C-alpha cells in the first residue's frame, strides 16, 4: 500500500506544481519516491480524487455521421473508466480523441486542466499508454524493443531502457531472461497482450488508453488478463480508459462505466449504481435484465431475506420454544424483545439440552452471532456463511431491530433462479 501512496503523492506534488505551467505530465523521480517511502504517509484520499481528463462539449463528425455528440464528461485520476456500447456508439472515437489520434470537430478535451489541442500530439501520445486490440506489437521488433519503444522515442539512454524493460517484463510475469530477445510471433496471444500492456506502462504514464485489448483472446486467457489488470491497477493506480463491448468485462474491471449510444453517454456511474438504477430502457437492455441476479454482489440482502422469521420473546419457556419450532418446522428461533430488538438465537440443540430444568429462553440464547445489515449484499453473506460455518444469518436494521433472516435455502432459491 505504501508504494501506491508514494506514487500518488509524487503525482500530487507534480500536478500541484505544474497546474498552471505548460508541463503536463510528471516523470516520477525514483529518488523522491524512495524518500517518501521511508515515511508512512497515508494518502488513500488521493485515489479517485483528481480531475484528470475532462471532455467539454466535444463533438466529432465524420462527414454527416455524428460519431460523438456534444460530450461533456470528467474522468478522475486513478479510476478505471470503461466505455461501452454497441458498435458505432462512439466509444472508440471518444478514446482516440484523448490522445488526438482523432481530432474533435468541436469542443475541447482537457488533461489536468490543459487543453490537449495546445499540446504537440506526438508529445501527448508519448505520455499516455496505448494498448490496442490484437496485434498491437511490432512483429519485426524483439520483445525488448517493443516494450522499450516509448522510452526509445523519448531518448532514454540504453542502460536505463534495458533496466526498465526487464523490470516491466518481470512485472507482467514474463521472465526477462527468457523473453527479452524473443519475437512477438513466438508468443501466445495472451503473452503478446501482456507485452502490449507492459509496453503501455514503459514510460510510466499516468493515463493508459485501452481499446478492446482483450477482445481477440479466448475466454480463459481473457479472464486471466483481466485479473492481472486488476492486480496491476491495485499496485499502480493508473487512470485507465478502457473500451469494450463486453458487459461482463466492464463490470469486472470498471470503477465507472460510461454507457454510450449514438455518440452520447446515456449513463456514467459506478457499475453497481448502473446495475441498480439503469437510466433508461436501453441501458437496462444493454446490461441485460438477468445480470443483476447473476452477480451476488448486486443482490441486496433486503430483497431476498425472509421477512418475518420465526421469533420468540426471551421470557418464554423452553417448551413454548420447542412447540414453536415444531409448528414452523425450523431448528432455531430469533429472540427479540418487545420493541423488536434482536437479542440472540435459540437453537434446537440448546433448547433440548436444557429442556426440563425450568429455564426460560433468555437463559439459553446464544448471543455470539454474526449479523448483517439490510444494505449488505449476497456476496458478503455467502462469504460470512463460508467463513463462520453458519447456515443462517439474521438481518438487522439500523436500530438493531430484526428485519429478516437469510438462510441457505433462501440463497439457493435466488441464485438458482438466474
Amino acid at each position, binding site marked *: 500500500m505504501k508504494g501506491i501512496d508514494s506514487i500518488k503523492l509524487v503525482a500530487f506534488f507534480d500536478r500541484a506544481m505544474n497546474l498552471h505551467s505548460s508541463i503536463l505530465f510528471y516523470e516520477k523521480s525514483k529518488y523522491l519516491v524512495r524518500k517518501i517511502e521511508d515515511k508512512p504517509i497515508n494518502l488513500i484520499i488521493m485515489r479517485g480524487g483528481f480531475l484528470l481528463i475532462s471532455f467539454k462539449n466535444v463533438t466529432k463528425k465524420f462527414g454527416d455521421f455524428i460519431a460523438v455528440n456534444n460530450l461533456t464528461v470528467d474522468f478522475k485520476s486513478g479510476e478505471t473508466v470503461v466505455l461501452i456500447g454497441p458498435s458505432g456508439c462512439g466509444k472508440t472515437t471518444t478514446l482516440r480523441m484523448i490522445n488526438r489520434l482523432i481530432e474533435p470537430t468541436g469542443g475541447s478535451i482537457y488533461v489536468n486542466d490543459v487543453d490537449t489541442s495546445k499540446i504537440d500530439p506526438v508529445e501527448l*501520445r508519448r505520455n499516455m499508454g*496505448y494498448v*490496442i486490440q490484437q496485434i498491437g506489437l511490432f512483429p519485426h521488433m524483439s520483445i525488448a524493443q517493443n516494450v522499450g519503444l516509448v522510452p526509445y*522515442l523519448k531518448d532514454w539512454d540504453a542502460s536505463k531502457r534495458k533496466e526498465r524493460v526487464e523490470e516491466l517484463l518481470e512485472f507482467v510475469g514474463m521472465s526477462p531472461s527468457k523473453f527479452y530477445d524473443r*519475437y512477438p510471433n513466438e508468443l501466445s496471444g495472451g503473452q503478446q497482450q501482456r507485452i502490449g500492456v507492459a509496453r503501455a506502462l514503459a514510460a510510466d504514464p499516468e493515463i493508459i488508453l485501452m481499446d478492446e485489448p482483450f477482445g481477440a483472446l479466448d475466454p480463459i486467457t481473457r479472464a486471466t488478463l483481466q485479473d492481472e489488470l486488476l492486480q496491476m491497477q491495485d499496485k499502480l493506480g493508473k487512470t485507465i480508459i478502457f473500451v469494450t463491448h463486453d458487459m461482463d468485462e466492464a463490470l469486472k474491471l470498471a470503477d465507472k462505466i460510461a454507457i454510450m449510444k449514438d455518440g452520447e453517454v446515456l449513463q456514467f456511474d459506478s457499475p453497481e449504481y448502473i446495475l441498480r438504477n439503469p437510466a433508461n430502457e436501453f441501458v437496462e437492455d444493454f446490461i441485460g435484465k438477468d445480470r443483476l441476479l447473476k452477480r451476488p454482489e448486486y443482490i441486496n440482502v433486503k430483497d431476498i431475506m425472509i421477512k418475518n422469521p420465526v421469533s420468540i420473546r426471551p421470557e418464554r419457556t423452553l417448551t413454548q420454544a420447542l412447540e414453536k419450532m415444531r409448528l414452523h418446522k425450523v431448528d432455531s428461533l430469533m429472540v427479540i424483545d418487545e420493541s423488536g430488538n434482536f437479542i440472540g438465537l435459540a437453537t434446537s440443540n440448546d433448547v433440548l439440552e436444557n429442556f426440563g430444568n425450568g429455564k426460560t429462553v433468555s437463559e439459553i440464547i446464544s448471543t455470539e452471532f454474526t449479523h448483517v445489515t439490510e444494505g449488505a449484499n449476497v456476496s458478503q453473506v455467502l462469504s460470512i456463511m463460508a467463513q463462520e460455518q453458519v447456515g443462517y444469518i439474521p438481518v438487522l436494521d439500523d436500530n438493531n431491530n430484526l428485519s429478516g433472516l437469510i438462510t441457505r435455502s433462501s440463497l439457493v432459491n435466488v441464485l438458482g433462479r438466474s
Partner: protein
Amino acid sequence: MELLNYVLNNPDNIIRLLIEHLQITGTAIITAIVIGVPLGIIITRYKRLANPILAIANIFQTIPSIAFFGILIPFMGIGKKTAILVLFLYALLPIVKNTFTGINEVSPSMIDAGRGMGMTNFQILRMVELPQSLAVIMAGVRIATVINIGTTTIAAYIGAGGLGELIFIGIQLYRNEMILAGAIPAALLAVLADKLLGYVEFKLTPKGLKNKK
C-alpha cells in the same frame, strides 16, 4: 574445345565486358532504387498520384526493349547513356510498385500502434513501414536486376558494351564459341544475381517476420 580456347585466349576481354555489363546494370538499378523507392513511398502518401505514376511505369515496362532503344536513339544517340536510361526506366516499375505495395500492405493497426505510441510520421516510416515492407521492396529490386541483366545484353546492339557485344559479334562472324563466351557468363550472372539478392532479401527480413506460416 573452341569455347575453352577462346576463353583462354581472351580472358581480359571477357572480364572487361563482364565488368562493363555489371556497371551498366548496376548504374541503372542503383538509380532506379534511389529514385524508385522514394517515389513509391511518396505515392503511398499521395494516393491520387499512385495510379498515374504506376501506369506510366507500366507503359515503360511494356515497350519491347529494342523498340525502346529505337525510340530514344534519335534523341540521345547510341551508346551507354541511352542504354542506362532505358534500363533505368525498366527497373522503375518493379521497384516503385513493390515499394508502394509493400508499404500499403503494412496493417493499419501497426501504423495506429506506432502513432499511438507517439511516433512522428518519419519514425513510422523508418521504424514500422520500411522494416515491414523491406522484403517486398527487395523482391522488386531482385526482379528488376534479373530483367536488367538480360536487357543489358541487348543494349550491346546499340553500342553500350557489355557481354552482349560478344554475342552480337559472334553472330555476325558465325563464331559459336564467341556467342557462348558472352551468353554463358550473362546467364550465370543473372542466376547468381538472383540467388545473391534472394539471400540479401532473406537477411534483410527482420527476424520476427521470418518463418511465418
